[in-house]
């Protein structure tokens, strides 16, 4: 589904990614673990299409298509979904307007019919219920006044509505207490399936106890230093990133 080959990228003149190779098949859940500054967020933003990053070498192919050539909205339509580390607050736009606009934009690009207000509300309420959220979240402005947990759940709700094929979870555990983490992880797990792939980006092993990956990769200094199974996450939890030359202050 996703082939990342020798990906190099910079922010301004500063190289961040220095040759990433990663292959993800449908149904797989990959975790990328790494210390701060290793390039984790850069990778997720490049995959989602954010401005401000320059790809200097390499390629990203998604279902046979050059992903890097597509604007962000096109990537979303073809099934790439980034769950944000810090979901953005948008005052003045109600969550339901946002979700309906996004869903219909994606459906239009996929050649599906748009939903009217009633159809949308029915679907959104069903998804809310499925994810243990209240309808009231639909009426509020996007993420404004939401707790950390509510923001993340709102992202998962968007994910459930947009029905992505490749989901990138960028530090989804940051700012969540254990109860909120469990709820978010349950939401993510309910969307796992043979046709979907996930890339879980995290600093800590904690999240991976709830979203159990098939593969774990260690990212440091802009490269994948080591790959393995889920047991690699536990090893990192015990020993830290020191063996990769990373010295993190305790």
């Amino acid at each position, binding site marked *: 589904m996703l082939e990342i080959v020798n990906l190099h990228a910079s922010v301004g003149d500063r190289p961040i990614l220095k040759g990433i190779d990663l292959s993800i098949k449908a149904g797989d859940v990959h975790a990328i673990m790494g210390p701060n500054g290793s390039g984790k967020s850069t990778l997720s933003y490049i995959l989602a299409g954010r401005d401000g990053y320059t790809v200097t070498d390499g390629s990203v192919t998604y279902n046979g298509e050059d992903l890097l050539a597509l604007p*962000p909205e096109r990537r*979303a339509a073809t099934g790439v979904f980034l769950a944000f580390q810090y979901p953005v607050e*948008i005052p003045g736009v109600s969550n339901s307007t946002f979700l309906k606009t996004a869903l219909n934009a994606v459906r239009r690009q996929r050649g599906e019919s748009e939903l009217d207000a009633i159809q949308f509300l029915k679907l959104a309420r069903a998804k809310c219920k499925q994810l243990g959220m209240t309808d009231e979240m639909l009426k509020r402005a996007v993420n404004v006044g939401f707790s950390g947990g509510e923001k993340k759940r709102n992202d998962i709700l968007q994910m459930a509505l947009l029905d992505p094929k490749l989901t990138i979870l960028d530090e989804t555990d940051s700012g969540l207490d254990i109860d909120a983490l469990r709820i978010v992880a349950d939401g993510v797990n309910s969307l796992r399936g043979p046709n979907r792939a996930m890339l879980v980006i995290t600093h800590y092993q904690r999240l991976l106890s709830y979203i159990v990956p098939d593969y774990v990769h260690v990212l440091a200094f802009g490269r994948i230093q080591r790959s393995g199974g889920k047991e690699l996450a536990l090893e990192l939890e015990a020993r830290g990133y020191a063996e990769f030359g990373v010295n993190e202050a305790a």
Partner: protein
Amino acid sequence: MTWLDTLRNTNRSRFAELGFPKTGQEAWRFTNLGALAGTPFQPAPPAFAKVAIETLPSVTPSHRLVFVNGFFCANVSASDILPEGVIAGGLAATLNQHPALIEAHLGKLAHDTNHAPQALNTAHIADGAVLYVPKGVRVARPIELVWIGTGANEPLSWHPRLLVVLEPGSEATLIEHHLSLDDGAATFANGVSELAVGAHARLHHYKVQRERNSAFHLSTVAGRLEQGAYYEGFLLTLGAKLSRNEIKLVLAGPGAEAKLSGAYLVRGQQLCDTTTLIDHATAHGSSQQLFKGVIDGAAQGVFQGKILVRPDAQKTNAHQLSRALLLSDDARIDAKPELEIHADDVKCSHGATTGDLDDDAMFYLRARGIDQDSARSLLIDAYVNEVIAEITFEPVREAFEALASAWRYAG
């Protein structure tokens, strides 16, 4: 009428001395009236609307009074019954029917002899609108003044006067709808409004200006709020080549409350100037101002807001904020918020912010499949709707949201 002739003549000679303001004057430093002063405007002759009232635009179902180039058009205005004692009609007609009432109020609030556009208006008083609400009367139905500008070939000017008198304890909702029926030569609408809001009276006053892009639109408002009075004003500016809303409100009685907000959306070569003075003259008054601009192309926004708190105005609560969203590199805003405080026990704040669309929000929307144009529209609507939400009268709030939203597609 001799008093009116005297008023006109005094102001005619006063304007002859003053001339149009120049940018060398502090109050006009950002707004250049050179193009206006250089246009040979002719006074618009009395006109009448040739169209049926049903076909004229309306903000919301209301008791509508229609004016063409400043002249009241009874034939296309509402004639249904208002509560007893309420007067809503043309100034010239009301002057004939209730001369004492007009003499008692006209020129009593707008009498700044150093204000050139006001002097020019007063020199030319011919017609306009009057709203009088007797003591304790609540006018439930909104009254909409439809100010139509028209004239194809030669530049025309008019100087409409609006007189609003709310007696103690009364209440009314006034909507002003300024528009052009056609395209053509420059027009110059130079309005002056006097708003007398009696003790514990409540005035809701909403204005939308969407004149054609050859229009000059100057509006000078002088309002006075007595004890416990409430004034809610909103200005939506979409049209005209150059427009200035200049509002002076005196909180004359204790506990008076003024809420004044507005949104302006301009592009091309448009200039929109908002100049306010909130004069807290006595204690326990409160005022709140929020103005938001969306400025595209090479358009210019001007905001000059002053809060004056006089020595007797203890326990004043006064806040003011100007915000501007610049959508292009050539767009500009000149903001001058000002506080002048002579009392020590007050809560006052003011501020001005300028920015462009939030990159984080843009990316968030696009990452969810929304294309760039739609994402921009959504964010602009959200920005503008935040200030339109200050309008407490829902039908106007919805109508203004729709007008502001339509602006984006008109570009």
